[in-house]
């Protein structure tokens, strides 16, 4: 039943009245809908499962009696089942299936990294790998990748397929140390369903782009690839998946791509939409097109120490050309010595033998550029340079949230400003100011009296700066503030009194909301304070090193 529940997507429900259902007790129990369980009983696949169970029993018996011919015959008649109808039943429309693709993709990517021994069937792993690679190729062909994020858990990708955001995570390519407290059978059942789902989705997606499914590499690219690898890869069928997973060649189409397809869609004004909104939408569309062609015309070369697959995938998704060392993987299209290379991705502290005419960059540049939707200035990403923080593209700051200063800079850059120089200047100014302050402080340390004197002086300076007679100004201001403050106080008191009159339930709700708001503010303040402390610490260190 567990397998059935997983495959059919049946989940427990939280009853509205827990006591009513649970015979008056509030002990935690899980409740399934009666309808769901009845629904499971009607499933034809139940019989298939039973047949399979019987088959396994017979086979075991035959082996026990060492009746090999019987065992062979049984194996020939091995019952099989298909999940097509369940997929169709659970996802009556294609969009429904796309919405639920997140987990399917993550699971397939995880399973495709499993070792080929133990844990689960080799066929499953191969199938997962194939489907994952097919999906990646589709994303490249449709250029639908939007965001990438390097987290400590793995790499998050977000693609937009038919208007649905699909997010998945891939682990870093290391051997897993398989935990013992994980039930792989549950995961295998999920994977079984997910592979079926992903296969159908891939089929449909490929057809929507007029691509062949199962995917074929473009004839021209195929021919290019062949002579180089003829010697090393004897079996054509074996290298097919590897070539596909190299992600360097484009796919064959059913119909030759013609530029007529890309004629702009006619725009129909939606009713109730103002011209401004129209304009905005148009702008967004343009920005999206620009984003899709971010790396158009750039040629990348990946050094052997950088993760090849994610980088190749991301670069190809945004129209760049990419290659790598021939010994690293199949599918390299050009050599490191190619003079037309514009960017070389390097992840080591320094590079010997730099070639003139190309940037040597750390891999974070690619990901940050994709997230920023523009090619970032390269100076921060040279090899051996301390990298700027890598920010999550999934965080959309709302009002009142804490925004890291790097994000602010980035937003300014996206708006077309050039804040870098200004901020640096500001920094310098600040530093100078601080220097002055420091000197003053040193003087101040001599005695407290002087400090007081200084304070007075400062006040005098202030008043001089304002160039108005001091007494009058201060009194006038004070009055104004007082009035405002009084008014504020009165308002806040009125509010307090009104809160007193709230009903109990509303008061509870109100307090909860206010508590949440306050907590948010507190957290934001905490982060800001931490940042400030860090910045000052860094500055002081800098100063020390300068002095030294």
């Amino acid at each position, binding site marked *: 039943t567990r397998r059935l529940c997983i495959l059919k997507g*049946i*989940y*427990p*429900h*939280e009853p509205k009245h827990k006591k009513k259902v649970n015979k008056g007790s509030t002990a935690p129990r*899980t*409740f399934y809908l009666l309808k769901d369980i009845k629904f499971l009983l009607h499933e034809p696949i139940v019989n298939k499962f039973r047949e399979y169970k019987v088959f396994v029993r017979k086979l075991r018996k035959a082996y026990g009696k060492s009746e090999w011919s019987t065992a062979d*015959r049984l194996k020939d008649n091995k019952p099989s089942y298909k999940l097509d109808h369940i997929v*169709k039943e659970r996802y*009556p*429309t*294609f969009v429904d299936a796309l919405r*639920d693709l*997140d*987990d399917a993709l*993550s*699971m397939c990517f995880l399973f495709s990294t499993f070792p080929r021994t133990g844990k689960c069937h080799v066929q499953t792993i191969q199938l997962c790998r194939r489907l994952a690679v097919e999906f990646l190729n589709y994303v490249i062909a449709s250029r639908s990748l939007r965001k990438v994020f390097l*987290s*400590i*858990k*793995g790499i*998050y990708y977000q693609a937009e397929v038919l208007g649905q955001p699909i997010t998945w995570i891939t*682990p*870093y390519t290391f051997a*897993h140390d*398989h*935990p013992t407290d*994980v039930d792989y059978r*549950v*995961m295998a059942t*999920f994977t079984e369903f997910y592979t079926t789902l992903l*296969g159908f989705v891939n089929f*449909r997606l490929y057809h929507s782009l007029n691509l062949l499914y199962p995917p074929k590499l473009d004839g021209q690219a195929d021919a290019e690839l062949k002579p180089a690898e003829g010697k090393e890869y004897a079996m054509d069928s074996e290298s097919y998946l590897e070539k596909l997973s190299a992600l360097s060649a484009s796919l064959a189409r059913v119909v030759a791509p013609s530029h007529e397809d890309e004629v702009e869609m006619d725009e129909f004004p939606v009713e109730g939409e103002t011209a401004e909104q129209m304009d905005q939408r148009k702008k967004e569309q343009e920005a999206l097109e620009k984003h899709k062609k971010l790396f158009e015309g750039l040629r990348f070369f990946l050094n052997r120490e*950088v*993760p090849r697959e994610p980088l190749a995938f991301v670069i190809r998704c945004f129209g760049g050309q990419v290659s790598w060392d021939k010994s690293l993987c199949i599918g390299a299209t050009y050599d490191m010595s190619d003079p037309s290379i514009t960017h070389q991705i390097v*992840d080591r502290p320094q590079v010997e033998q730099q070639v003139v005419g190309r940037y040597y960059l*750390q891999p*974070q540049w690619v990901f940050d550029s994709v997230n920023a939707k523009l090619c970032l200035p390269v100076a921060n990403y040279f090899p051996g340079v301390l*990298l700027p*923080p*890598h920010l*999550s593209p999934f*965080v959309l700051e709302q009002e009142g949230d804490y925004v890291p*200063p*790097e994000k602010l800079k980035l937003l300014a850059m996206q708006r077309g400003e050039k804040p870098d120089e200004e901020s640096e200047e500001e920094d310098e100014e600040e530093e100078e100011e601080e220097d002055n302050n420091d000197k003053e402080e040193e003087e101040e340390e001599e005695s407290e009296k002087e400090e007081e004197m200084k304070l007075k002086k400062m006040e005098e300076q202030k008043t001089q700066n304002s160039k108005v007679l001091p007494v009058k100004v201060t009194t006038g201001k004070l009055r104004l503030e007082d009035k405002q403050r009084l008014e504020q106080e009165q308002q806040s008191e*009125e*509010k307090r*009194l*009104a809160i*007193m*009159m*709230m009903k*109990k339930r509303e008061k509870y*709700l*109100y307090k909860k*909301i206010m508590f949440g*708001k306050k907590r948010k503010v507190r957290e934001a303040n905490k*982060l*800001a304070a931490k940042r400030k402390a*860090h910045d000052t610490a860094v500055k002081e260190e800098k100063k020390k090193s300068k002095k030294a």
Partner: protein
Amino acid sequence: PCPPLTPFPSAPLQDIRNTVGNIPMEWYQDFPHIGYNLEGKKIYKPIRNKDELDMFLEKMENPDYWRTVQDKMTGADIKLTDEQVDLVQRLQKGQFGDVHFNPYEPAVDFFTHEVMIHPVTNRPADKRSFIPSLIEKEKVSKLVHAIKMGWIKPRKPKDDTPTYYDLWAHEDPNSILGRHKMHVPAPKMKLPGHEESYNPPPEYLLSEEERLAWEQQEPAERKLNFVPQQYRCLRAVPAYARFIHERFERCLDLYLCPRQRKMRVNVDPEDLIPKLPKPRDLQPFPTSQALVYRGHTSLVRCLSISPSGQWLVSGSDDCTLRFWEVCTARCMKTLPVGGVVKSVAWNPNPTVCLVAACVEQSVLLVNPCLGDKLLYGATDQLLESYEAPEEERVQPVRWVAATTEEHSRGVRLVVQHSKAVKQVTWHGKGDYFASVVSDNSNLQVLIHQSSKRWSQNPFRRSKGLVQCVLFHPTRPYFFVATQRYVRVYNLLKQELTKKLMTNCKWVSSMAVHPGGDNIICGSYDSKLAWFDLDLSTRPYQLLRHHKKALRSVAFHRLYPLFASGSDDGTVIVCHGMVYSDLLQNPLLVPVKVLKGHAITLDLGVLDVLFHPTQPWVFSSGADGTVRLYT
């Protein structure tokens, strides 16, 4: 094909072949001989007298030392010949021992696939190859029978439909069933924030304390399920150890976690605040502290004001009554009474100048001798005009006239009870007054008539611990508050009219609206209940304004105001408009929180009182002061 090494052809002259066979030669270690030759004679071990030095010298000098081996069987040293050395070397290389053996001879394809003209063997075919096999027949018939009976199924044809096809080619809107509408889709995984980055901004890294706190938390309680970390470059990022765990937990969530549609409350908190009339529109009400009456040295328990509003009396734990002038905060008179004053009440009749005060077991009737001389003179006359009746009546209390000393201080009459008195209150006309005794019997409440010096006990049975009593301002009703209920008695008909449920745990005080149709009750569980007597026996509204126990409540005589004082040191003044229209419910709006009393011994405000004509409120507190707010 390796010849045995023992019979050496190099020693053919003296045949000393040992006949002991293949045994461990250690067995002969302790004997002088090493075995027996063919004739049965002992073979003696060669005499060995070489020491290490000799061995070394031989190693250095003898050019054939490297090819000399010791024969175990005979103990003799043997020099290997060239062929023997050759053989050893070949064996060491893994080659065949025989020099002439060719391991790579051309293979003769004897049973070749090409059809030859001659048979491989000349043997004639067996007879059994011409006649059908019985065993086979048996087997076939068994299979046929099994197939007939349906035990064996013939091989199914391989189904050749493609594994993947366009499943959604015909999207049928009818296939969207009720199930799909009922379906609660699983929430998507939370998207990662900045703190999950491999190179996060520095403020997202945990400090040392935060990390410790994180480690001490239960894994289920942690806000982040990982520790944010910073790596200098992508190359340094290790694999995430809990990746498989997290996927597995997600799987478990998907099929084991109960799902429920939760409506997110999307309310602007400002909308929740009820729209009340602005306090400014409800003026006048006291807004600020105007005067502080200092003088008492201990907590001031009770307050009362003269009907004219000119004089204020306060009773305190320092065993004094003090009379104040309201406008100047001057203490006009201090009356030591020799006991804690629990309650004090000024006669509401403006023509009488008389104050009742509870001191321990007695109620004192005091003429403060303040104000109009005529007035207080008249009061004295009124009290003295009493003539004792002829026959002695049985009374629950004793009325005693004051001694001369006491009389000079102002005390006129002493009503001695059997137990301590907690409260005293006047009837609106100023003749009758009621006192509450802390007792558990039916003698808790007594009603006294001051002009006739006569007392009576209105209740036959006790209905619980009486907290306070009140006279109705206009009609012959009497309110008695016990711990949880307020009973309304009709004094004329001598019956219970109503029983009000306060919904409180312990009523502390009670006040009646001058109109007489509304009551407020303060309780020790910090609630204030407003009753509309015409409406219901349950509170019209329960106000939870105070944070601590309420000590006293009061109504204003003219303005629609009521106040409550509490242990949290505040007095809250509310606007309580009662409309003459019976259909319109009273309007209750808090208008002001008055602070001023310092909290001492966990007690704040002990009594509140309104000025009879002005919108002023007095409060007495545990800090020994009386305060006036205007």
